[in-house]
């Protein structure tokens, strides 16, 4: 096939000819090595590749964004402790990332990409979130929000809107939840919870937190305060510790919910009422905990409701 474009008679080509393809990851492993050796020695070539990569980022942005399942973030954050950071920009370490190699002025030391990094070399299986079920509800297509993932095809607009409303704020809250895990995880395991409220409940909470498989996460509540959820699949129980929650007055109460989001309909089951003492509370949820359930807290009329009547101030994924 004849081409009006310049023919490729310059094959085999020098590494400079490969830079665009290199930036597109369209080179073979051998070519990649050639290019990376060249990059280590040539600032001009590095600048060239940098510019191609900026352009390639444009290609990346042409791919429509897709929100990953919310469980992915927690799963990543939970692994940071086992993923030490490399030293600064000019120091060649053994853990040069795949694309990091050529960014390093001493890249020649290690063309072997991220496989040398501890976390990256862990078997893929072990990197999956432990409860496989946490990934299941959003398959096959991760959706923008949990609400959308749960909205069955054909649900009416009003119905979808209602669901979305219920989950929109927790979505935002959940987004920050995982980060908080790291900050408090150590503290909760140590379990020196002291507080004015609920010593009996506190002991029960501690029992749950002491279970082998206990997990915990903390989020800020909409409207102020902070709530920690601790749960154990083995025990089939979960509990919350709340701090600094605002007073809701005598005619209203906080209500806990187990929410099953696996079916077509969101199924919220009341899991107990509580009224914080000075903003603090320890509460073991009523009913059986199963992994994958969402846990939510709403403010309801005194005496509680059969189904949530307001947006949750907090929602947890388990």
């Amino acid at each position, binding site marked *: *096939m004849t*081409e009006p*474009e310049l*023919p*490729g008679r310059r094959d085999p080509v020098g590494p400079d*000819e490969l*830079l*665009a*393809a290199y*930036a*597109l*990851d*369209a080179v073979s492993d051998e070519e990649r090595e050639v290019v990376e050796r060249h990059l280590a020695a040539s600032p001009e070539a590095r*600048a060239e590749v*940098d510019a*191609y*990569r*900026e*352009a390639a*980022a*444009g*290609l*990346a942005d*042409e*791919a*429509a*964004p*897709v*929100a*990953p399942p919310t469980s*992915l973030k927690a799963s*990543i954050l939970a692994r*940071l402790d086992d993923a*030490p*950071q*490399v*030293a*600064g*920009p000019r120091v060649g370490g053994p*853990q*040069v*990332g*795949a*694309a*990091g190699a050529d*960014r390093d002025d001493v890249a020649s030391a290690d063309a072997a990409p*991220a496989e040398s*990094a501890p*976390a*990256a070399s862990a078997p893929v299986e072990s990197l*999956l979130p432990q409860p496989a079920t946490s990934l299941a509800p959003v*398959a096959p*297509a*991760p959706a*923008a*929000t949990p609400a959308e993932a749960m909205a069955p095809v054909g649900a009416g607009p009003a119905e979808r809107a209602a669901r979305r409303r219920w989950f929109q704020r927790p979505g935002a809250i959940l987004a*920050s939840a995982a*980060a908080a895990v*790291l*900050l408090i995880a150590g503290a909760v395991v140590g379990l020196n919870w002291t507080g004015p409220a609920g010593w009996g409940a506190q002991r029960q909470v501690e029992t749950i937190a002491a279970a082998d498989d206990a997990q915990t996460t903390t989020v800020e509540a909409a409207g102020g305060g902070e709530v920690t959820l601790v749960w154990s699949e083995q025990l089939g129980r979960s509990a919350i510790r709340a701090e600094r929650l605002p007073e809701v007055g005598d005619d209203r109460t906080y209500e806990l919910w187990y929410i099953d989001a696996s079916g077509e309909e969101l199924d919220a089951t009341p899991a107990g009422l509580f009224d914080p003492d000075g903003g603090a509370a320890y509460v073991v949820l009523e009913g059986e905990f199963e992994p994958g359930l969402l846990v939510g807290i709403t403010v309801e009329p005194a005496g509680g409701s059969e189904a949530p009547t307001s947006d949750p101030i907090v929602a947890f994924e388990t």
Partner: protein
Amino acid sequence: MTVALAPALVAPLPVRRRAARSAMLERVVDAQPEVAASDPTVDDLLVATGAGDRAAFGALYDRTSARVFGLVRRLVVDPAQAEEVTQDVYLEIWQTAPRFDRDRGSAISWMFTLAHRRAVDRVRSAQSARDRDLRVGARDLDVPVDTVAESAEVRIEHERAREALAALSDLQRECVALAYYGGLTQSEIAERLGVPLGTVKTRLRDGMIRLRRLLGVTA
């Protein structure tokens, strides 16, 4: 397609311009409140991540994960595998963030580079070249149906990218798309298209040079 896109091509947005190399200039740039001080840029967040700031890393994830996952999904179609790859990508971002050098490019481009490389590694190990180009083929400019969580910022970038890509010649776009979205090597592209390898190299290079210009990247 191309005609309607012309205005954007005349004046590429300066969003993705590369950072100034001069430290003095950079300080000036930093001082400009292009976003509220309480709203750090993606670049700021990646730099802070490189200093070991986990909260910044969490915020970085929130700001970028839909874009990164969208790219990974584009190459690695299987959702479960795409999640694994994305997880590996973010762990690598965390680990290698200290090496990020904002003088050399934008944070998002650095992150996309990591993500693309890993996604390509995954598809190359998991799928034959034939499978890959069957997937790319006709739909390489289609938007997947299972989207989308887009901020205004992302939407703008997305449109810009579409427009720039649309402005390439058909032959250039075909090669670039097969390489970038299909994970094919130059040789595989040549084989698939039945053209000499040198032709593919030329198209890729010319296409990328053009794209660079359209997107306002200065070398």
